[in-house]
C-alpha cells in the first residue's frame, strides 16, 4: 500500500513553473529519497503535501485521504521536519514535545512516555537547557523527535542533513534509519551519498517532473556501464588521448563513457602503443551522482 501518492502536480509562482506534472508514490515502510538541485521544487512539493501551499492542479493523497490546501486533516498521518526547524527558544525539549503532543490531542501519560522514548532516540534525554542554546544539529534532532511524537505513518524530512557537519549528518541518518521501523520516510536532499546510504526508493526531480524513479539499484542500473577516467602525465596529451580513445577531454582528464572491462583493456593497449605517459587511470563504478548529472544535463 502507498502512504503517499502524488499525481500530475502543477505549481507555478508567477511566470515560473516549479512543478510541471510531478507524479510519484511512496510505499509503506520505505525510505524514499527525493533528489533535486536547489530550487527544483522539493520544498514546494512538501508544503503542498502538508496543505501549507495550494497546488495549481493535480492530486495528493496521504494514507488514502485527499490533501486540501489550508486543511490540516491529513496531517494527522504526517510528521514534518522543516529544512531549518525553528522552535520556541524559551522552552526545553521536553516542554516543546509536550506542546506538540497536546496539539495533536495525545493523552498526558502517552506524551510523557513517548517524549522520554524519543528524546532517548535522538540523544537529547539528558539535555536540561532551553532550546535557544541548542546547536543546529541538536535542533535537527529535536525536529525529528517532534515529527515522530504522534507516531505518524509518514515522516517528511526536508533536507535534514544539508546544513550539518559530517558528524551531525551521520547522527541524523542513523536516527532516520532507526525510525524506518515505525514509519515511512520521504527525505529530500541534494546530497546523493546520503540517499545511497539509507533510501530504498528514489525519485530525481528535474524541470518540475520526476525525471527518474525507482530503487537505488534500479537507478544505478540505468547507466549501461561505468566510466574510465585517464589523467595523462603531460597535460598536452589530453586532446590526443581523447581523440585516440574516443572519449571527452575535460580539464586535463579524458573520460570514456560506458566502458566495459573489454574496453578497458583496449584503452590500456592504445595508451601503451602510443606511448602516452599516464599519471592516473581509474575505472569508476556507476553512482547516483553521475546519473544525477546526466539527468540534469551537466
Amino acid at each position, binding site marked *: 500500500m502507498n502512504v503517499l501518492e502524488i499525481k500530475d502536480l502543477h505549481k507555478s509562482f508567477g511566470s515560473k513553473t516549479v512543478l510541471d506534472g510531478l507524479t510519484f508514490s511512496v510505499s509503506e515502510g520505505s525510505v524514499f529519497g527525493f533528489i533535486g538541485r536547489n530550487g527544483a521544487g522539493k520544498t514546494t512539493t512538501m508544503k503542498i503535501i502538508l496543505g501549507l501551499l495550494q497546488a495549481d492542479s493535480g492530486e495528493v493523497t496521504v494514507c488514502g485521504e485527499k490533501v486540501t490546501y*489550508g486543511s490540516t486533516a491529513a496531517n494527522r498521518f504526517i510528521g514534518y521536519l522543516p529544512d531549518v526547524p525553528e522552535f520556541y527558544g524559551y522552552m526545553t525539549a521536553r516542554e516543546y514535545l509536550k506542546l506538540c503532543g497536546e496539539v495533536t490531542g495525545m493523552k498526558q501519560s502517552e506524551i510523557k512516555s513517548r517524549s522520554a522514548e524519543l528524546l532517548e532516540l535522538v540523544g537529547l534525554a539528558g539535555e536540561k537547557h532551553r532550546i535557544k542554546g541548542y546547536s543546529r544539529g541538536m535542533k535537527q534532532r529535536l525536529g525529528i523527535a517532534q515529527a515522530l511524537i504522534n507516531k505518524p505513518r509518514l515522516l517528511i524530512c526536508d533536507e535534514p542533513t544539508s546544513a550539518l557537519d559530517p558528524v551531525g549528518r551521520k547522527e541524523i541518518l542513523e536516527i532516520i534509519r532507526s525510525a524506518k521501523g515505525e514509519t515511512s520516510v520521504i527525505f529530500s536532499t541534494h546530497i546523493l551519498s546520503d540517499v545511497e546510504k539509507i533510501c530504498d526508493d528514489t525519485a530525481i526531480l528535474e524541470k518540475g517532473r520526476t525525471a527518474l524513479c525507482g530503487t537505488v539499484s534500479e537507478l544505478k542500473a540505468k547507466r549501461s556501464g561505468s566510466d574510465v577516467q585517464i589523467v595523462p602525465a603531460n597535460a598536452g596529451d589530453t586532446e590526443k588521448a581523447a581523440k585516440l580513445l574516443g572519449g571527452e577531454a575535460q580539464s586535463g582528464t579524458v573520460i570514456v563513457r560506458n566502458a566495459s572491462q573489454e574496453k578497458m583493456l583496449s584503452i590500456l593497449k592504445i595508451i601503451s602503443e602510443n606511448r602516452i605517459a599516464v599519471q592516473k587511470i581509474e575505472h569508476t563504478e556507476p553512482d547516483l551522482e553521475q546519473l544525477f548529472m546526466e539527468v540534469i544535463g551537466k
Partner: protein
Amino acid sequence: MNGFSPFLKKEFFELYRKGRLLLFGILFVFFGIEAPALAKLTPALFKLMSDEFEQQGVIVKDVTSTAAVSWDQFFGNLPVILIVFVIVFASSVTSEFSSGSIIPLLTKGLSRTAFMLSKLTSALITWSAGLWLCFGITYAYTAYYWKDDSVQSLIPTLLLWWLFSVMVICLMYFFASFAQTHIQVMIGTGCVVFVMSVIGVADPVKKYLPSTLTDSMNFCTGAQSISTIIPAIVITTLVTVCSVVFSLVLIGKRKV
C-alpha cells in the same frame, strides 16, 4: 478549532518565560499607585515651588487636590500603557511566521483559527486583568485619601475605556494577520487611532468616533452623559467584531 487550549497555555507560558507578565505587572501596579500618589503630592509640590512662582508674579494660594485629580491622572496614564502594550504584542503573530516556529505546530493539526484566537485571547486577558488591577489600586488609594464625591460612575467610565482598548488590540491583530513585520502592525494600528483622533476634532462626528469613549473625565464628573455616545459604543463594537472576523479570514489565507 484544533489546538486552542494547548496553544493558549503556550501563549501564557511564553509571556511568563519572556518576562512580559512581570513587565506588565510592574507597569500596571506602578501606574495604579502613581496616579493617587501624584494627586496627593500636588499641593505639596505647588507649595514647594510657590517662592519661584511668586518671583514670576504668580501667587499660589492654597491648592487642594480631590479624587478627580487622581482619576484624571489615572485616565491620562492609560494611553501610555496601551501604547507600550501594542509595541510589545505587535510581533506576536508576525514573528511566528517570519521565524517559521508556527510551521511544526500547523503541520501537527493546529488550526489557524485556534492559533489566532489563542493569541488574541491571551493578549486580551493580560490587558484586561492588568487594567482592572491598575484601576483597583488607584480606587483603593483614592478612596482612602479623599472622601469627596467629585467623581461618580467610575466603573461604566472604565468599561468604556476598556472597550476602546479592546478595539485597538483587535485592530492590532487584524493588521498582524497579514503584515510581514511588527513595524507594519504598529504603523497600521497607530494610523487608524491617529485618523480617529484627527476626525474627532470636528464636533458633529465626535459622538460616532470610538476615541470619544476615552473622554473619561467628562463621564465620571457628569459633564457628559454616557447615553450621548451610544453611536460611538456601537461603532467601536462593530470595528472590534469586524477586526476579529477579518483577521480570521486573512490568517487562513496567509502563506507559510
